[in-house]
C-alpha cells in the first residue's frame, strides 16, 4: 500500500514537473511570438498567404486566455477574423452578389458543438485560397467530409437535390443546425436551446416553410406551421416543459413524419415509407408511433390543409355549426343576464337592504 502511495506521489511530482515545463514553454512561445514577431511573419510568408492578409495584421493580440479555454483557435485565426473592426474589409461577395462575411463573432463559439475543432479542421489546406466556392453545396460537402451518412441522405433529399449554383433557396446543414445560419454556431442536437431540439423544430422549419412567397414557388400552399401548432402534436410539444427531453422526444414534430436529412417531397411521391418520410404510405408513418392505427385513423388526419367544405364537408360544416351555436347560446345567456340586471335590480337591492336592517336575514 505504502509503495503504491509513494509511486503515486512520484507520478504526481512527475506530472507537476511536466506541467511546469509546459507552462514555461507556453510562456516562451507566447512571449516569443511577441518578441520575434518579425521572424514569425517571415515564416508565414513562405505559405503564400500574404496576398490576402492585410499588411500589419499577420500578428494579432494574444488570444483571450479565458475564451481560449472554451474553444480551439490554435492558429490564432481569430486575431483577425474575430476583429469586429475588420468586418467590412473581410466581407466578400459570391458570384450572385450575396455577401460572405469572414468575420467570426467569438461570443457564441463557446456554446457550439465543434468548439474544440480547430478552424483548420474545416478550413483545410490553405484557408486563404479564394478559389474555394463558398455556397450551400460546398458547405454541405464540407460537413459531409465527417458526417458522411447524413451527407449521403441530404444529397438525395428534397433540400439537397435542388441546390444549384444559382438557387440556394433550400436548406443546407447550417440553416437548421445553427440558430444564426452560420457554420460557426452549430449546436448540439440535444441542447434544449438548440434550433432542432424537438420543441424548436417547427419554428426552425417555419423559417422557410412559413414564408408563403417562398413556398408558393415550390407549390407548397398549405400553411404547415400554423396547422401543426393547432394539432395534437403541436399542442403537446408547445406545452411540454422546455427541459423535458423525454416528453418532447415522445411527441411528433415535423421531422418525425417527414424525416430530417432524408426529407422527400410528398407531391411527387418519391418518399419512402421506410424512412418514415412522405405520405405515400401515411398509415405506415402513423404506425411508427401509433402501432394500433387502422386505415380509418389515417383518414381522420387532414394533413396540413385547412378544413374545407370540399374535402371534409362533415368536419367543415360541423365545425361551423358548433362555432355559431356556441356564440348564439352565449349571446342568449348574456342577454338574459343583461336584461335581468337592468331595471329590476334596484327594487331587489332595496328589499335586501330592508331585510338586512330588520335582522331577519337567515
Amino acid at each position: 500500500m505504502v509503495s503504491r502511495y509513494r509511486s503515486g506521489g512520484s507520478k504526481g511530482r512527475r506530472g507537476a514537473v511536466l506541467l511546469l515545463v509546459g507552462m514555461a514553454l507556453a510562456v516562451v512561445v507566447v512571449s516569443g511570438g511577441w518578441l520575434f514577431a518579425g521572424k514569425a511573419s517571415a515564416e508565414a510568408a513562405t505559405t503564400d498567404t500574404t496576398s490576402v492578409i492585410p499588411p500589419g495584421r499577420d500578428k494579432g493580440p494574444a488570444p483571450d486566455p479565458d475564451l481560449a479555454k472554451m474553444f480551439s483557435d490554435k492558429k490564432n485565426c481569430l486575431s483577425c477574423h474575430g476583429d469586429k473592426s475588420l468586418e467590412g474589409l473581410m466581407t466578400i461577395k459570391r458570384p450572385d452578389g450575396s455577401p460572405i462575411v469572414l468575420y467570426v463573432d467569438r461570443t457564441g463559439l463557446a456554446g457550439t458543438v465543434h468548439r474544440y475543432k480547430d478552424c483548420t479542421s474545416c478550413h483545410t489546406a490553405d484557408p486563404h485560397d479564394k478559389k474555394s466556392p463558398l455556397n450551400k453545396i460546398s458547405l454541405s460537402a464540407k460537413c459531409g467530409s465527417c458526417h458522411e451518412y447524413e451527407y449521403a441522405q441530404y444529397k438525395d433529399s428534397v433540400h439537397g437535390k435542388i441546390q444549384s449554383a444559382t438557387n440556394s433557396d433550400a436548406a443546407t446543414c447550417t440553416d437548421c443546425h445553427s440558430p444564426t445560419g452560420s457554420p460557426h454556431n452549430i449546436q448540439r442536437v440535444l441542447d434544449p436551446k438548440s434550433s432542432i431540439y424537438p420543441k424548436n423544430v417547427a419554428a426552425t422549419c417555419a423559417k422557410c416553410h412559413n414564408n408563403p412567397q417562398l413556398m408558393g414557388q415550390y407549390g407548397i400552399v398549405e400553411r404547415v406551421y400554423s396547422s401543426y401548432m393547432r394539432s395534437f402534436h403541436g399542442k403537446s410539444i408547445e406545452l411540454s416543459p422546455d427541459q423535458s427531453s423525454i416528453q418532447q422526444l415522445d411527441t411528433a414534430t415535423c421531422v418525425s413524419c417527414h424525416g430530417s436529412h432524408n426529407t422527400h417531397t410528398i407531391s411527387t411521391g418519391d418518399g419512402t415509407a421506410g424512412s418514415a418520410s412522405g405520405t405515400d404510405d401515411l398509415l405506415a408513418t402513423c404506425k411508427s408511433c401509433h402501432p394500433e392505427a387502422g386505415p380509418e385513423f389515417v383518414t381522420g388526419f387532414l394533413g396540413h390543409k385547412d378544413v374545407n367544405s370540399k374535402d371534409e364537408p362533415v368536419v367543415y360544416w360541423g365545425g361551423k355549426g358548433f362555432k355559431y351555436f356556441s356564440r348564439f347560446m352565449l349571446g342568449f345567456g348574456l342577454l338574459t343576464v343583461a336584461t335581468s340586471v337592468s331595471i329590476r335590480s334596484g327594487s331587489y337591492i332595496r328589499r335586501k337592504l330592508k331585510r338586512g336592517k330588520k335582522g331577519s336575514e337567515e
Partner: protein
Amino acid sequence: MATTGASAERIDGKYIRRFDVHQRIQHIMMFSSFIVLAITGLPMKFSGWASSQWWMDVWGGIANLRTVHHGAAYVMMASFVYHLVYLGVNIIVLRRPFPKDMLPGIQDVKDLVQDFKYNLGFSDQKVQFGRFSYREKFDYWAVGWGLVMMVGGGLILMHPVGAAKILPGWIIPLALVAHSDEAVLAVGWILIVHMYFAHLHPLIFPMNKSIFTGKVPMHLYHEEHPLEYAKIMAAANLPLDAGAEEKPAAPAPAESPVFMPARVPEQS
C-alpha cells in the same frame, strides 16, 4: 323526506326542502370536476398563450395536465351515470312520479318572453314560476346536451386510434372542434349566467346555498317559485304569506285558532 310534490312534509322550519341528498352529491361531483376540467382543458385549447405555458409549467407539463383532465372527466361521467341511475331507481323501483316538471313546454317560451318584457319594463307582470323556471330547465338540459357532446367528443380524443376502428376517421377532427367549442360555451355560460343567477343576483348575493343544504328559505321560495310555493302552503294549510319576507315564517299558530290543526310538523 319529500323534496318534491306539494306536501306539507317539505316545510322545515323557515325553510322548504328542494333537493335530496343524491341531487346535492351529483351537483358537488359535477361542479368540482367541471372546475378541474376547465382549468386543465382551457390551456390546451389556448396553447399559444403565455399564460397557458406558465400554467402548464406549474403542473409539470401537458402529460400531467392531461392525466388530471382525464381523471376529472371520469368523475363527471360518474355523476352523469349516478343521475341516470338515480332517475331510474326513483321512477321504476320506488315508483315515484315521473319528474315532468323538468320537461320543457310551450309555457316556458311564454315565460321567457314575459320575463324579458318584465325585465325591460314593458310589463309589470312578474312571471310566476312553478317548481322549475324556464331558466332552470334550460340549465338542466344544457348540461345534459353538453355532457353528451363533451363526454362523447372527449372519449374520442382520449382514444383516437380506438375510436377510428369503430367510427369513420373524420370523427376525430370533428370531435376536436366540438369538444373545444362546447367547452368554451360551457365555461362561458357558467361564468356569465350561472354566476349571475346563483351568486351575483341582488336577491341571492352572495350565494344560493340551497344546492348544498337542500333547503330554500321560505321567503326566497315565495319569490322564486310562487306557484309551487302556493301548492305547498295549501297542502300545509298555511296562509300564502307565511313565508313572505314582510312577515317572517311561522306566524305563531297558537294565537290564531284557525291555524291550530295545521301546525307545521316537527322535522328531525
